[in-house]
């Protein structure tokens, strides 16, 4: 879904002008925006020169009062209206949030769809809206730096984010009016920042195995990659999308709580004070062996050894995930040549020490672990927007969790296994179990457990209109398609009758397209006209692109790949599109013509793709292939 165009109505972006693209690291604790200038990735700071933007939004009755450092100042004084660590709630339902326990001191109100909303002075807000505020602030920094509009962004997500969390992130960007070029996994982004850097001064012909250990504020990822000549191939990924520095703070806060003999339910202010103290203690203990704490009229001492006792269990959980990822990658730990540390929580010496023990080598952290993800994302954005030639870089990423379907008895049948390279498409046949059954309910789930109840439910839909048949004779083909953002599309088809049904998977806890449209409209003063103009402009851009692409294609391959009738039809359709493009102000009419040309030229496009596959391999003789 692309509702927003980036340039204002009437101002057509000039195709050959350099475009403004950024990489955004939307973090649990801090967020950043970076861009590539004269070949190197730079963080875009705020007007005070600060790189980070605390991922904090403060609400007043009238709405958002401030975002970032200013908002963080309200942390202790107005905790219920100061929203922090919102990333932990993205794509999650109320049940998940209950499992996070008392770690987030908010009042929740459920909306009809089961998506949690947080009660604030301004009324209930969804995590997606809060994230959109942070993104909008970052986009503002970029536009200030560019002195112009932002053309697109690569937004990073934890590699272990599931479908619902990814979709929620994309929705937040849409809501903030940002065109998402790609959702990029955080460890992969870090690898780009490191990998390209390293390539310039090292032997480029060799393949290298690297591991990226990314412990952020609220999420943990481990990725094992194979690097060769600018190709970043993720072999396996693992992690925990609800484990991060926050949890280390909570472990310390719980200890404080018991030392202080506080047995009552803590009020939000007390909770924040304890957490702040815990965080400071954790940070100070990176330098010293013990720290004295003044808290709520009491004095406490926390030593390094005590700290280790408190957090070792959590760090060990991350190491288990590392072992699993190494096994999934099918490699031995001693073949991994480099381990990279990413994420603010890896500043804790205990984490680095334990990682070094597991991998048997000293981890690398020559780039600032807080900045590296945004820098890698900026490099990818530069390629995708078309400013930089893509010839020397390619990312091959994987899905973190298996995708399956519910079968009889509440069991999961996996269609796509975890760590499969994306994009990926898989189809499987199922059949009816009752005589004369005319509908089939399809339940899409994500996870690696056998029971559906242990997996995450992504979507349910129904295939109707199956012709009545004896049980077991219908052939229902269910197809899963995961795109390069890691987002899923599901379709189902009865093969003998051709009855078809498909959905873009919208997670149970996400926003519907209508809700997003509504929120977007609400945020414009002259909503309707604006939206229409934007939609029209967007279709015009699409029409231009199609005219240009298809005419070039006809020039090149029209005679060889199309017969006379096909060629004639396509040319007539394109001329009609050209006329509509110039004269029509109804975006729907334009969209229909684009859609119909698209459909009728699919065969042509497919034939061209076939030819270019041959060309891609032609000239790649065996010897060359081996040398490369």
């Amino acid at each position, binding site marked *: 879904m692309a509702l927003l165009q980036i340039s204002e109505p009437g101002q057509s972006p000039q195709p050959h002008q350099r475009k403004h693209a950024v990489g955004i690291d939307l973090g649990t604790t801090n967020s950043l925006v970076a861009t590539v200038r004269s070949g190197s990735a730079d963080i875009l700071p705020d007007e005070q020169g600060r790189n980070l933007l605390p991922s904090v939004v403060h609400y007043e009755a009238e709405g958002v009062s401030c975002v970032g450092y200013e908002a963080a100042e309200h942390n202790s004084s107005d905790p219920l209206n100061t929203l922090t660590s919102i990333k932990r709630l993205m794509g999650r339902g109320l049940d998940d949030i209950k499992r996070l326990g008392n770690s987030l001191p908010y009042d929740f109100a459920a909306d009809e769809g089961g998506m949690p909303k947080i009660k604030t002075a301004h009324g209930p807000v969804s995590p997606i809206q809060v994230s959109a505020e942070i993104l909008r602030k970052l986009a503002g920094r970029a536009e200030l730096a560019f002195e112009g509009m932002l053309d697109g962004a690569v937004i990073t997500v934890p590699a272990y984010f599931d479908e619902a969390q990814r979709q929620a992130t994309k929705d937040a960007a849409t809501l903030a009016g940002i065109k998402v*070029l*790609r959702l990029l996994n955080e460890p992969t982004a870090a690898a780009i920042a490191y990998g390209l850097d390293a390539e310039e001064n090292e032997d480029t012909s060799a393949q290298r195995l690297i591991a990226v250990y990314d412990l952020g504020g609220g999420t943990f990822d481990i990725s094992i990659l194979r690097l*060769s000549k600018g*190709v970043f*191939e993720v072999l396996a990924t693992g992690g925990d999308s609800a484990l991060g520095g926050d949890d280390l703070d909570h472990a310390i806060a719980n200890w404080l709580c018991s030392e202080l003999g506080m047995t009552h339910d803590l009020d939000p202010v007390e909770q924040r004070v304890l957490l702040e103290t815990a965080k400071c203690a954790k940070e100070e203990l990176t330098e010293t062996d013990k720290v004295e704490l003044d808290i709520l009229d009491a004095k406490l001492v926390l030593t390094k050894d005590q700290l280790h006792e408190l957090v070792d269990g959590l760090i060990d959980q991350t190491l*288990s995930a590392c*072992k*699993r990822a190494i*096994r999934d990658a099918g490699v031995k730990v001693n073949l991994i040549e480099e381990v990279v540390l990413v994420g603010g929580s890896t500043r804790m010496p205990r984490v680095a020490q334990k990682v070094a023990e597991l991998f048997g080598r000293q981890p690398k952290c020559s780039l600032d672990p807080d900045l590296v993800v945004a820098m890698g994302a900026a490099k990818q954005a530069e*390629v*995708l*927007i*078309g400013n930089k030639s*893509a*010839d020397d870089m*390619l*990312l*091959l990423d994987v899905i973190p969790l298996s995708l399956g379907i519910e079968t009889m008895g509440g069991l999961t049948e996996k269609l796509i296994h975890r760590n*499969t*390279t*994306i*994009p*990926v*498409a*898989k189809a499987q046949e199922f059949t009816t179990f009752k005589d004369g059954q005319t509908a089939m309910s399809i339940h899409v789930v994500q996870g690696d457990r056998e029971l559906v109840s242990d997996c995450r439910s992504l979507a349910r839909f129904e295939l109707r209109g199956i012709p009545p048949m004896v049980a077991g004779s219908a052939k229902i083909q269910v197809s899963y*398609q995961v*795109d*390069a953002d890691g987002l899923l599309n599901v379709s189902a088809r009865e093969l003998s009758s051709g009855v078809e049904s498909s959905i873009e998977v919208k997670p149970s806890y996400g926003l519907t397209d209508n809700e997003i449209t509504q929120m977007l409209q609400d945020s414009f003063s002259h909503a309707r006209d604006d939206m229409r103009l934007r939609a029209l402009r967007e279709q015009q851009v*699409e029409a231009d*692109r*199609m005219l240009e*692409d298809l005419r070039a294609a006809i020039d090149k391959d029209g005679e060889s790949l199309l017969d006379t009738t096909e060629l004639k039809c396509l040319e007539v359709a394109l001329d009609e599109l050209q006329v509509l493009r110039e004269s029509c102000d109804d975006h729907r009419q334009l969209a229909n013509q684009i859609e119909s040309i*698209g459909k009728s*030229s*699919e065969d042509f*496009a*497919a*034939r061209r*793709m*076939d030819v*270019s*596959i*041959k060309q*891609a*391999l032609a000239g*790649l003789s*065996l010897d060359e*292939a*081996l040398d*490369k």
Partner: protein
Amino acid sequence: MSIAKNFFEIFSLPASWELDQSVLDKKFRTLQLTFHPDRYANKNDFEKRLAVQTASTINQAYETLSSPLLRAQYLLKLEGFDADQESHITSDGQFLMQQMLLREALSDAKDCANPKDALVALSIEAQQAAAKIQSEFAQYFNTKEYNQAFDALAKMQFACKFVSDISRLEAELEEL
């Protein structure tokens, strides 16, 4: 689907059991450098969608050819023997006996004093058994004795399942 050709043709490779993995790796990267959706980020929606489909097919072809079991299955499918459609159980008594003994050894290993070492030893044995069946398959397939090759495939499935069961147990032990 656009490239409705077989997985070997996608990589311009002969449909044979023997395959040089490093050649396949190179060709795979060459194709993805051309067809990955990142290369189509600036194209129209239809070309984008086509790139997603094409890259998906290339990924699936690569996965299939890279795995000995999936490759064997696919080769026989091209010859009209579809292991997805008909289940076949081998009647090779010696093989079945060997697998039964391995299974017993596996359940003993779980309960013995040093399960990790026992599993490593068993894993080596299982992989040797799997390699032996693979060469059996290759021999029958290359001489076009497809019925026997199909029987060997059934054994390969058996042996692969066993190897993966061992590594799952190893994983469970490691994560304790």
